[in-house]
Structure formats: C-alpha cells, structure tokens
C-alpha cells in the first residue's frame, strides 16, 4: 500500500491525529492489515456462511 493510499484510508477512518503524531505506526498498521488479508484464503464454496450464524437466544 503506497503512502498516499495509507493517508487516504487513515483520514477516512478519522485517524488524522495518529497520522500526525505516529505516522510510522499508522504505516505499519496498514501494512500489517493488507498482509493479513492477502494471506487469507477465500472460502471454497461461494455459498459458505459466516460464523457465528444468525441465531436467537435467551440473552438476545
């Protein structure tokens, strides 16, 4: 992720202050997030449901 994209996404997330005070941490976070997403395989079945499934219960 290039610097301009990181700044754009950080501002959209409301992180102007972090971007000013801790730009290296913001850049490292963006890199880590894209790395995690890239390493995740898509489900093999396009109809795969997420976990936890929708449910009802006494506490809801």
């Amino acid at each position, binding site marked *: *992720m290039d610097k301009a994209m*990181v700044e754009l*996404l*950080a501002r959209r*997330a*409301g*992180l102007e*202050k*972090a971007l000013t*005070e*801790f730009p290296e*941490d*913001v850049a*490292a*976070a*963006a890199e*880590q*997030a*894209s790395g*995690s*997403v890239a*390493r*995740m*395989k*898509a*489900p*093999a*079945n396009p109809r*795969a*449901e*997420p*976990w*936890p499934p929708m449910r009802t*219960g*006494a*506490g*809801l």
Partner: protein
Amino acid sequence: MSGLHWMTAAAAARAIAAGELSPVELMKALLARIARLDPKLNVFIRLDGDAAMAAARAAEAEIASGRSRGPLHGVPVGIKDIIDVAGLPTTCHSKLLIDNVAAADAVCVSHLRGAGAIVLGKLSTHEFAIGGPSFDLPWPPARNPWNPDHHPGGSSSGSGSGVAAGLFPMALGSDTGGSVRNPASACGIVGLKPTYGLVSRRGVFPLSFTLDHIGPLTRTVTDNALMLDVLAGHDPLDPGSAAVPSGRYASGLERGVRGMRIGFIRHFHETDVPADPEVAAGLEQAARTLQSLGAQISDVRLPTLGEFGAVNRVILQSEAWAIHGPWLRERPGDYGRLARRRLLPGAFISAGDYVQAARRRLEMIAAVEAALREVDVLLCASAMDPPSRIEDAAETERTYPRQARTPFNVTGHPALAMMAGLSSDGLPLSLQLVGRNFAEATLFQVARAWERAAGIDEKHPAIG
C-alpha cells in the same frame, strides 16, 4: 507449616475445610512472599492485601462455625486486570483506564467468590490484552520467575508469573489469540482456554467479541479442573454464552489414556513454523510417553498456521477496532507503542474482509471437527521457542507469532497448554492439548496422565 506457597489450591482447600490450615496463616505466608518477590516480578498492578487479609479472617471464622462457602473456601486467587473486581480499578494496564473503578464483580469473579475464593488483587497484562511487554506504560511488565530476564508470556503475564512463582495458587486470565496458554507455556504451569461460551465474559473488558475466552491458570491439572468447575455455567446476559451442562471436570482425572486416540499435529511445528529443536524434542517425548501409557498416536493434518493466523488477525483487528477506534482517533498518544501498533490495523480492514474471514472460519471449524471425529484429543505445539529475553524487543517480536494457539481461538475448541519439560537454559518448554467442544474433562484426563508421568507438577522455579 512450611512451603505453604507451593501448596495447590485443592490441597489448601482440603486442609482449610478440615481445620488443619488457617486461611489467615496461608494469606500471611503469601503476602510475605509477594512483598519479597513482586518487586522483581511486577506481577501486581494493584495488591488488595488488607481486603484479602480481612476476607481470610472472615473465612476462618465461618469455617470455625461450621459454615462452608464452597470448594475454594479460603483459597487466594489473582485476577487479570481486564476483569472487573468491585471497588478496584480495571485499568487494562493502560493510562486510558487508570481511574476506571469497577462497580461490580465480573461473573467469573463472582463465581470464584461464591465458591469461597479470596481475591488478592489485580494482575499485570499486556495493554488491553494485546500490547506485548511494554516499558512505556504506567506499570512495568511482569517478568518470568524461571529467569526474570525473560518474558513470562502474555497477555495474562501477571497471572502466569504469579502462579509459577508461588504468589498464589490460581489466577484468572483471558485468551483471544492464546493469552492464557502463552503465559502457561512460558512459565511452566497449566492454562486452559475453555470451549467458546463455557465461561461467561460479562464484566471483562473485550478485545474481540467472537475470539475472547476466560480461563484458569494453575500449577496443576487438578487445580485447573477444580477452578473450571466453579467458573463454567450459562450466563443468559452474555450473548456468547452456551447453555450446556457443565461441571465434574475433575471426576475422571486419574483414568489414564489407555485406548485413547490422540492425533499429533506435527506439521504445525515441523513445517508451518519450524520449532526450536528442544521444543520439538519435548513434543516427541510427550507423544512417546502417552503412547507408552496405552494411547494410540496418529498424525493429523489441519489448515496451516499461516492460514489460521491470517483469519485470526482479520477478525481480531476488526472487532478490536470497533472497540478502540474512538480512543485511537482522539487519544492515540495515551496508548503504549505496541498496543497502538496492534490495534490500528483494524482501520484498514474492510467489512468484506471481515465477513470473508468469518466464512473461512466456519470451514476451519469444520476441519477441526472432522479431525476430532477420528481421534479423542489433539496434541500439538503451543510456543515454538523458549521464552525470549524481555528487554530484547526484536527477539520478542520475532518469537511472539511463532505459536500454535490462535487456531483454537478461531475454532472455539477447548485447548490446554502445559509444561513439556525444561530447556538446556532451564526455561519451560510447552505442549498443547485440544479437545472436542465442551469435552474439557477428557482434556484434563490426558493432561493429568502426562503431568503424572513426567512429574512436572513437582517442578518449580528456584526463585526465592
């Protein structure tokens, strides 16, 4: 009575109930040990010694008058400082919550008190249960009693260090990516992440709603089962709580493993994340020992640690961002550097990525369920390395993700970490046992067989 600090919770509870041990004498011994060792180990954020001593006196009077509160009457317990204890601050080891006094006990604390346990105080953690050993926070990080130059694991650092050092026989921790099992591994004790939903999370500061678990840390398997007996149970006000029967976790502890089928997940430590040779040797030794006790060992394959780790991070960071986003926007400088770096990634993960991770998660749950239809219990690595030197930030950063604990936060299956032996440097090595959902009793049965065969409940650090 000498050596009270190594007394197990079960032995202390029995002796107290029989009138052979005064809870006041036990508390005095532990408070004296805490005064001597805590300055080296930084286990406590807040020691509540006066209240603990008053509770010990009350317990003594109750027992003398024939009144028993429960199976832990008079036994001290430490509480990780993300868990509410009424009247004490829940700081999460962070400047952000330094004055956050809890109005009520968390449900897990309430269960322990109901069984007669006495809260000693609040224990060090990684900031918000995620930061790592940090030196830029209001309190120093806990240290490892086997060698205080080393990291005690985390994030339930004070819980692991304090139990291993004999400051208290049992503690509560939380586990979102391995935070009960990591300190159990690094400190050579027993740490359980129960099945998701078995122990209420109400009153615990969240890190990731669908990955968070509360679990016991103890020096023995028996104590862990005893604690889980008290902690487990349905809580209708915790949306993740499971309405299942619970209890009697210690009933089959001595049954052994003859005829039991144990699946060994070798690829985790052999190819996915190659382990330190001493860790690998410890795992092989445990497998051989369990086999010699009558278990059938077979190889099992699951998705790789890399795949599990990616799903865990996407879910954890997304859910943690939902909690921490407002503070990260307004007060980023009030976090320590490590927590800030580990919480910010959620800002860069899309809703689609999160849902995709949740869908992949269901496939991973199915893979573990399929494996557990063929075997009774899984054996695998916990930490791939002995604990790092705490002030070597690069080594801690390198070794921190080298573990096999996150898969079972993703899938929710119960997982227990314990000592596999000691390294040539005298530091704990570890293993992990994983069971079917809500089959903690079977996990304890295997863990107890290994504990007894290896004599690891007799191994304590030489500190003090």
